[in-house]
């Protein structure tokens, strides 16, 4: 397939080729890498197959127009943001006003990344991790342990614990977030 032929070229390089030669071929290869992800994101928010498909086409058009105007450095984050904003607008048009909960979810920015490398320079972090793991609620503790330490899939954890797949995912996500908070707090307290 056309896209596979260029799999050794990074997104950044493809963008550079496009900006240098203005050959839309490079832009096409780059956008095709994200078709499936864009379709999924649009479907998640719009919950309609036809609307999701149309939205991906509109996002492509927007990308083609916008990328000509200015330089984008982190394409993946940029196209994700474009897709989320597009869905937000669609939902606003559809419902007049967006439910507050959904609005927060769509506009929320990612948590600032923790410098985990720096965290791991501290030998005591491993002890802190073991200590903090015990402080999680039983469901989160069980799911985090099974997932990260015993390397089980959601399906296996669900079979073993009786929780639904959604619950398993949620316990792992929340457990991971809480662990980070607990460790950072402990490190701060000890400094």
């Amino acid at each position, binding site marked *: 397939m056309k896209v596979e032929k260029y799999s050794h070229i990074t997104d950044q390089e493809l963008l550079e080729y496009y900006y240098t030669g203005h050959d839309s071929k490079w832009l096409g290869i780059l956008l095709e890498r994200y078709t*499936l992800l864009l379709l999924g994101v649009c479907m998640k928010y719009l919950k309609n*197959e036809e609307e999701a498909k149309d939205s991906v*086409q509109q996002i492509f058009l927007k990308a083609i127009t916008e990328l000509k105007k200015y330089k984008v450095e982190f394409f*993946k984050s940029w196209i*994700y943001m474009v897709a989320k904003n597009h869905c937000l607008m669609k939902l606003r048009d559809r419902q007049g006003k967006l439910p507050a909960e959904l609005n927060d979810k769509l506009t929320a920015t990612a948590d600032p990344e923790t410098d*985990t490398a720096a965290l791991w320079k501290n030998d005591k972090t491993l002890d802190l991790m073991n200590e903090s793991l015990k402080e999680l609620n039983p469901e989160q503790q069980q799911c985090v342990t099974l997932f990260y330490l015993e390397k089980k899939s959601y399906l296996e954890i669900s079979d073993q614990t009786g929780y639904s797949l959604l619950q398993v995912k949620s316990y*792992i996500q929340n457990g991971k977030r809480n662990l980070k908070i607990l460790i950072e707090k402990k490190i701060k307290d000890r400094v």
Partner: protein
Amino acid sequence: MADNLKDILSNLSPDIDQETLMLYLQNKLSEEKRHEVEKTLLDNEFADDALEGLQQFNDKKQINFLVEQLNTDLRRKLEKKKQRREKLRIKEQPWLYISVLIILMLIIIGYILVRRMLLHP
């Protein structure tokens, strides 16, 4: 064990290829590979959102077809734009303007010459 624990704090947002994501969706991966994909998704908000949406498609086999359709449409659009740009580029060529000017001048000169010959045979 220590390495497994380190995974919990990782937030490197690794990439996942479309093919693996499709195999995951169709339940065609081993448990080990499923775990790897799920671990990647926990650190990749974009792909995690996408997977949630893709799971809502009634017919998972339809997804590949839709993706191919969207890609074909994209290629067609970009090709059209490219052709339009190339046409414009041809119009921008200075020799084209010069040629038109020379032809116009030749016509005018020819007209004047013919008129003079007719008036003063």
